[in-house]
């Protein structure tokens, strides 16, 4: 057996190290180390509750709005208020903009550059991949960055700026959109749709969203081989990325995008079939994390965060959240599975959920979201209220459960004597990249890495890089 320490892992948000035990060219065991601790949960203690809206977005520069949304929701719960229709639509819109921007940023800047690596030079698709996706110099970045900046104009319009806005409040949004703002927003969305349809998919978004099975996807890929998504599917087929990197755990989603009656994509668990989610069964284990141990895994409403840098069994700053004692995987794949998209369900039922399924689910989500965003923008009613006010009670306990681009994000807030008594956060990558728990059960990535091939002499195995990045990890959220 040999041991490989892979890090600093880049093109992920934040710092990450992966420790691999390798025998006969395969990973036998993996340990995932989150190497940065900042202590937001400690910083928040004692603050005025609304100040959470200043602090939590700054946990993460890439899913800043999702953090705001979770805090706003927890505070709204404490206040017993809900935003009016316009406020709900704006919240959906800015969360969706971030979700879409994150998915395409992951695809173009973080994930695809690995296919331009010289190790794939002999592949028939390599020349095209290198031309498009070579980091910084590839042609795709030149198309993508201006398109992304164009999309982010919607944040200037709706949220003042991105990242780190205070626009999302418990009672709605601070920026009422007027008639001209609504039109500008529609123009921005239509422009970004053109980029997606012309460059990423080479097809209408509705046609992509309607792909209903694995076979249909294969036929689509042949007809759209020239698009960036088509190029990925070609490489994925050649490298068998379907089988690679399956975690084999249940999938979880808290549900996303508020409608008048419940969430558009519902909450739930998927493991061979859909089950309801009971958030009361969530608990965090710190047996292998650098924190003072509790006698048992604690539910986040009673959780604590006391860092200790010296602890024998520990190897990460990431806690190990478990649902009813089980590790789960979260993200776009989980969201679309639980929401019942036929393509994603077909892929999982036939081949399980590996690297390819994660990427497909993300881009499918982009194709589904943009038309919904146009619809939400159309539904805005300038002149009608965008927010309501409310009073914060001196004592309250509330949770805010939302979906960030990378998966399920929860904030658990406890207010005593008008101040934050405890604030616990479980981010998507905390679930996906958790270390082992007290019964030795590895987290989703630690499982997904087992059996991944390691080539002769490879110090940072390229297959390992595909698997790690397929989760679109956000390490700054993970530990916070």
């Amino acid at each position: 057996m040999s041991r490989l320490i892979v890090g600093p892992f880049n093109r992920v948000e934040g710092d990450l190290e992966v420790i691999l035990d390798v025998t006969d060219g395969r990973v036998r065991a993996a340990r995932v180390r989150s190497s940065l601790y900042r202590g937001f949960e400690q910083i928040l203690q004692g603050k005025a509750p609304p100040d959470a809206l200043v602090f939590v977005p700054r946990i993460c520069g890439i899913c800043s709005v999702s953090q705001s949304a979770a805090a706003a929701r927890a505070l709204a719960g404490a206040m017993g208020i809900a935003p009016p229709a316009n406020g709900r639509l704006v919240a959906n819109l800015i969360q969706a903009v971030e979700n879409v921007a994150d998915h395409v940023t992951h695809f173009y800047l973080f994930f695809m550059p690995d296919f331009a690596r010289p190790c794939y030079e002999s592949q028939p698709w390599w020349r095209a991949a290198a031309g498009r996706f070579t980091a910084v110099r590839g042609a795709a970045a030149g198309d993508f960055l201006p398109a992304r900046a164009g999309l982010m104009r919607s944040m200037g319009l709706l949220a003042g700026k991105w990242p780190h806005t205070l626009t999302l409040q418990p009672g709605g949004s601070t920026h009422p959109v007027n008639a001209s703002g609504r039109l500008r927003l529609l123009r921005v969305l239509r422009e970004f749709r053109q980029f997606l349809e012309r460059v990423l998919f080479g097809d209408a978004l509705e046609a992509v969203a309607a792909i209903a099975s694995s076979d249909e996807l294969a036929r689509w890929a042949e007809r759209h081989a020239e698009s960036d998504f088509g190029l990925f599917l070609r490489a994925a087929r050649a490298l068998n990325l379907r089988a690679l990197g399956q975690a084999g755990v249940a999938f979880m989603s808290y549900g996303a995008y508020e409608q008048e009656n419940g969430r558009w994509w519902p909450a739930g668990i998927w493991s061979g079939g859909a089950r309801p989610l009971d958030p009361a069964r969530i608990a965090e284990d710190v047996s292998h994390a650098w924190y003072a141990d509790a006698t048992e895994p604690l539910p986040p409403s009673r959780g604590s965060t006391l860092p200790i840098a010296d602890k024998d069994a520990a190897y990460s700053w990431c806690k190990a959240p478990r649902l009813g004692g089980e590790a789960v995987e979260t993200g776009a794949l989980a969201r679309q599975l639980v929401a019942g998209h036929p393509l994603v369900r077909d892929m999982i039922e036939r081949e399980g959920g590996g690297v390819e399924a994660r990427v497909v689910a993300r881009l499918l989500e982009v194709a589904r979201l943009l038309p919904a965003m146009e619809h939400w923008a159309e539904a805005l009613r300038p002149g009608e209220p965008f927010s309501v006010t409310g009073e914060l009670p001196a004592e309250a306990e509330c949770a805010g459960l939302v979906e960030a681009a990378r998966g399920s994000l929860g904030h658990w807030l406890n207010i005593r004597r008008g101040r934050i008594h405890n604030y616990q956060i479980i981010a998507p990558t905390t679930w996906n990249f958790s270390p082992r728990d007290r019964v030795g059960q590895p987290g989703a990535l630690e499982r997904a890495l087992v059996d991944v091939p390691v080539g002769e002499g490879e110090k940072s195995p390229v297959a390992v890089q595909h698997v790690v990045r397929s989760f679109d990890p956000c390490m700054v959220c993970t530990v916070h």
Partner: protein
Amino acid sequence: MRVMWLQSGGCGGCTLSWIGGDGGPLFATLADAGIEIVWHPSLSEASADESLDILESCADGRRDFDVLCIEGSLLRGPHGSGRFHVLAGTGRPMIEWVKLLAAHARHVVAVGSCAAFGGITAAGVNPTDACGLQYDGTNSGGLLGAAFRAGAGLPVVNVSGCPTHPDWVTETLLSLARDELHEADLDELARPRFYTDVLVHHGCARNEFYEFKASAEKNGDQGCLMEHLGCKGTQAHADCNLRPWNGGGSCTDGGYACISCTEPGFEEPGHPFTVTPKVAGIPIGLPLDMPKAWFVALAALSKSATPARVRQNAKADHVIRWPRPARKP
């Protein structure tokens, strides 16, 4: 000009903001100015062992680079060990890497208020003993010490902001590449004066409301955010309302207070962020160079002279009274 970029105790938001700038295709702009990215954690192909090679050779002087950009606070804890951030794959605290690399850099740039002053990560009990490269809040010192000068002679250039505006970063790099950023171009806190010579208040769309102290009382109101909702635009050095964010926004345009995120210590204002602290009904934080007595007198006068249009719109979430066009007699 070769740029080495590392991230430590921050959120990565300054990078994400940077690549979202709408001043044209960023990578082409950089290449055109002869700026080459030696390594950047979010952008470079090189990973793990390949990036380690680059880091080590830069740190021991075998590989030349010009600018060291640091994003995120420097974490000195626990107990001065720096172990709250051990750079992955190296077993060595990030603060050691930063010191080694800074010694070889011609310029050191702090990207964001975390790297400049400590920022958000230093808030509350400052659990990680976070500080900036050359400042610990308002005190000079920080990780590298007050006396530090990079190879070309400048102190750490503090591109503060939480996050930074994309152009603050790009224009700092462009000025360095053109050798156009000198000591006189930096303010008292070593921030590039091209964006800190003005206040956030300058160009704010709520200026007319400010003039008449016609103030917003709740979220969504159109009035000035200073009297009740915590706005520090009259004290914060930055051109946020002259240089729009994301195609046209800003904090105050978005309907919420400027929390003066470019200033050291903004993370601990000593009051809830979006509530203006007052003594005897008068906001404590007055405009930077305005004598208090004058402010009070002028405020009283302008309040009594407020046109009905301004007074009514200030407390509404959309224009309910508009400036009527003059009619022909």
